[in-house]
């Protein structure tokens, strides 16, 4: 084999490997796109012991404003409660706060938003101030987080007017938050239930 043939095959081999690396990267991106477009039905449930459809844990907490409020109790006025757990150290939470604000306005005829955190009140209020959400009820209670099995932030739970837990889970985007409402309207517990139900229908 001449030197030229060896050189050409060497270059061709490199080209093949580069193309394969490109293909792997494009496939990885495609998987990401599929994840982002995943069916909007209920936030990702963390299999955490909370039972959707059952009575939500009732926890009486002190609001930062000084008043007391029982989270998870039935609401005689017929309104549901969206409980949003966040932390000032979580950048995704900061991105979601304006979305929570917007959705509380668009769903204001049936939802009350309650923000929940744990730790320094000043830090929490600073974040809310920057999102212009000082008017939202805020409570800082570790007990509430434990009662709702909050493992990862940002986490949201939707409690209906009878005090039943409609959906709960990790929320990372606008779609996840809106899926909480959709889950209530469609009567789907969480993302996994929706997907397994669809898979069963296809079979």
């Amino acid at each position: 084999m001449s030197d030229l043939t060896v050189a050409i095959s060497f270059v061709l081999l490199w080209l093949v490997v580069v193309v394969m690396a490109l293909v792997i990267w494009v496939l990885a991106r495609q998987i990401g796109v599929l994840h982002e477009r995943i069916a909007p039905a209920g936030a990702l449930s963390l299999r955490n012991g909370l039972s959707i459809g059952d009575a939500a844990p009732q926890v009486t907490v002190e609001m930062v404003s000084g008043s007391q409020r029982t989270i998870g109790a039935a609401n005689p006025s017929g309104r549901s409660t969206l409980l949003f757990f966040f932390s000032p150290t979580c950048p995704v939470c900061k991105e979601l706060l304006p979305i929570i604000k917007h959705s509380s306005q668009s769903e204001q005829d049936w939802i009350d938003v309650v923000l929940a955190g744990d730790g320094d009140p000043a830090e929490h209020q600073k974040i809310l101030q920057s999102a212009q959400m000082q008017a939202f009820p805020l409570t800082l209670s570790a007990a509430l987080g434990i009662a709702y099995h909050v493992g990862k932030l940002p986490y949201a739970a939707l409690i209906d007017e009878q005090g039943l837990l409609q959906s709960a889970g990790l929320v990372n985007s606008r779609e996840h938050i809106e899926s909480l409402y959709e889950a209530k309207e469609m009567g789907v517990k969480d993302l996994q239930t929706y997907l397994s139900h669809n898979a069963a229908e296809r079979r």
Partner: protein
Amino acid sequence: MDSAFSLVAVTVIGLLFTASVLHKLFNFSAFTESVRGYRLFGSGLTQPVAGLLVLLELMVVFALVQADTREVGAILAILLLLLYAGGIGINLLRGRTSLHCGCSWGNGQQLIKPGQVLRNISLAVVAGIILLPGNGRELLWLDWVSVIATTVIFAFAYLAAERLTSFSVNLR
């Protein structure tokens, strides 16, 4: 060490730091927030430390370009990579796994994981190749093909790995 291997290490580390410094400069406020999140310095020091890190990364890039400052660049790169590995390690030990790492330019929501400590140490080892004495071999055109191809493959593999690890966090 063969000149071709050394050059691959220079291009890989150089490319990594170029991308990193551009990402940090274009999202400086987000980077400052990430530095604050690590809670390794007083909050008054966050901004200067973030600025200093960007400056040091920029120095790595420029030092690697010049042959006579390449070793300084490599040492600085190793120190920075180990510093980041240490910062992530300390926060993992503190149990703060919901912390944004501030270390990726592909996905803005990467949380810190033990794998990132390993990744940074591996990259520091790659940067260490630059410090090994070279054999001074003249590079042929075929060597240049290998160097460029290896660097491109590294870039794709790195982006793909970053993309794939970001879902495992979202789905856990």
